[in-house]
């Protein structure tokens, strides 16, 4: 099987790996690079649990042909914390009980980060829109919306 070299930035560090023909970025990140934070939920682009940020935009790694990220900047939940210091979203997800099984959480965090990077104080409607491609089967979404509000320094149903 043909292997193709791919080089890109992953969470700020250079990565050089070989991808298989037709391999998607999710599989390359998980098995090729060993970044296990993006999750497989469907391979169809319908669940959002593999969401990563590529060149500042949220994308679905399961629908991204791995070799196409050559030279691009990829961000995953694995790089969200700054060393031991958690990102405000991570703190807010913990504080607001915004995860149950936790499987959708890395994708949710990436979708939320992409939003906050551009819109530091999003409205509730903007948050809903930002996570609309990410499915959560456990929480009913409300704690997640609350956590993103809290991470952006806005009142939630508990604090507001």
């Amino acid at each position, binding site marked *: 099987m043909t292997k193709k070299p791919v080089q890109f930035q992953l969470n700020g560090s250079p990565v050089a790996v070989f991808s298989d023909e037709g391999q998607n970025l999710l599989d390359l990140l998980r098995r090729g690079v060993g970044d296990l*934070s993006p999750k497989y939920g469907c391979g169809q682009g319908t669940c959002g649990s593999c969401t990563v940020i590529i060149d500042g935009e949220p994308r679905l790694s399961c629908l991204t042909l791995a070799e196409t990220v050559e030279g691009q900047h990829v961000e995953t939940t694995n790089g969200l914390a700054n060393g031991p210091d958690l990102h405000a979203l991570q703190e807010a997800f913990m504080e607001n009980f915004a995860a149950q*099984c936790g*499987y959708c959480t890395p994708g949710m965090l990436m979708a939320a980060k992409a939003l906050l990077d551009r819109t530091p104080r999003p409205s509730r409607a903007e948050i809903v829109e930002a996570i609309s491609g990410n499915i959560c089967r456990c929480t009913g979404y409300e704690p997640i919306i609350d956590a993103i509000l809290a991470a952006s320094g806005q009142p939630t149903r508990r604090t507001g």
Partner: protein
Amino acid sequence: MSSVEFRKDLFADERDDNLQEIGKPTRRQDILGHVTGRSPYYDDHLFDGLLHMRCVRSPHHHARIRSIDTSQAERMPGVVRVVLARDVPNNLNTLLSLINFGKDEEKLIQDTKVAYVGEPVAAIIAETEGQARDACAAVRVDYEVLPHVLDPEASLKPDAPVVNEIYPNNTFDYHDLYDHQKLRFGDVEKGFSEADHIVEGEYQMSPIEQAPIETCGAIAAPETNDRFVCYTSTQALFFSLGTTAKLLNMASSRLHFVGGTVGGGFGGKVDSIVEPLSVLGAVLTGRPVKFMWDRAEEMQVGAPRGAERWRIKDGVARDGRILARTFTGFFDAGAYTRLSSYAIIKCTGHIPGPYSIPNVASNVYCVFTNRTPATAMRGFGITGVDFAIECHMDKVAETVGLNPIELRILNAYRDGDMKPHRRLAKNTALIECCQVASQKSGWAISADAARQSSLTGGGGSRADIPESITDSVGRIGERRRTDIPTEPGMGAASRGRVAAGTQGIPIVAAAPQDEDMITDPARMGFRHAPVAPSQPGATPSSPVPPSAAPSAAPVPPQQNAPAPQPAPPQQPAAPQPPQATPDPAPAPYKPEQPFSRGVKRPGVSRFLSGSRRR
């Protein structure tokens, strides 16, 4: 936006809220892993040389397998092993054989006949998932398509195709006696004849996919000590281990299962299919093998909660009291039993819902059809019948012209009431829930309904077991010969009677095996035991008009207790949790007609529920 209040004022005299850790909003132990993406789900264990397994699946609802040609697939790039039925050492199982319930009937991989679309007939192990997919597409299976049946009631007709040869009547065999589970309490015909209204309804549940975001999967690998490790998404670690040991005819000591961090289950990860297949793959190849369902398989091949069909008939008095209720239920099990047979037992124990009804009867059928086998889902055995019951209660309320909440309170079960499965109700709280929901929504109920309590008004004559009418319609195989009614008691040539007042002894928890395990009851947060059921004659009255003057209600209006707040210290009373009683449990009740099992058990796993094997 949602809100949560804790009504600490209710049942306050039964609880000691002065606990150190219980009742505190402690953060989840696993939350840091979740938000950093480092929680170790089964697929987060990396192996060098990991192989991938995929299944070749039936495109037909029902077909005989004439032949399977894997020659082309074997030559495909990356293919390491083709797995067929003959590679499975003990290729017949039923999931609940681990508790000795039902006959072995389902193959891990089929070789003779497929009974649903998606049933596996072969598995391919290849270097990549894509190669395994390509090779699956190259397997040629010659099928002889057979007539199929998809509607559960059509499946009960004498001429219906046989879905599952182990159960040739298309129904699970209960107690080696009937083709359904019966419940008989009192005399429903008498109840109907005394009623002012008869209310009938039919309800149909949809099949529901559990839809965890992590699909079912497992990775198995040889360990260095001649064992196999299996990382799994299972909801039941030893269930999956035991099933694997049985199907692979392997000592359980050679299996090392690791799980416990699972991306949602909702009942869909009990079936233990990915574990034996991945371990079999590791055995056959000597390499790590992953078997993971893709989303399409999870949705259409993974077992859903089966559809249920319910018919309910109520005899209702003018004032809203339900005098008799019958159920006829059909659980669409799909092609194999999985857990449906047990759901029906659970459901039968739940009937007629949280109400005290003096005459109750039900017939519930576990029916085989040519569709994906059904299994557990959040609300196992209960969600469907509760939908039926509560929709039906709305019709009853409309029929008698009563506020639907008051109708529920009027008929609600209370402490000390006898349930149709012949055990006394205790620790009930339906009435209080109704009252609080009424308050919160502003949907007013009468003063009399607001005055009722689960603690009083039960027991007395409501604790009696009435003389009950029985019948023996629906013996196994009868329905295959002739079309007979499915409703309770219908079509009976003769009726039996079970005398009033007979009741078995409730089973309580096995006592702690060592006195060191007996907990100081003062530390368990209980206060005095619930008050004894009140005397006869205190049964609830008929509802009074809403115009009646409100009186002091046992459920006062909202007292918002923003939990968690430690309550002030109080004197520990003398609670009596079970840990306090070192006495051995009373002997389990044994009905005269033994609960029949009859598992075919070559290679049966030996370590689960051994007490139930005979």
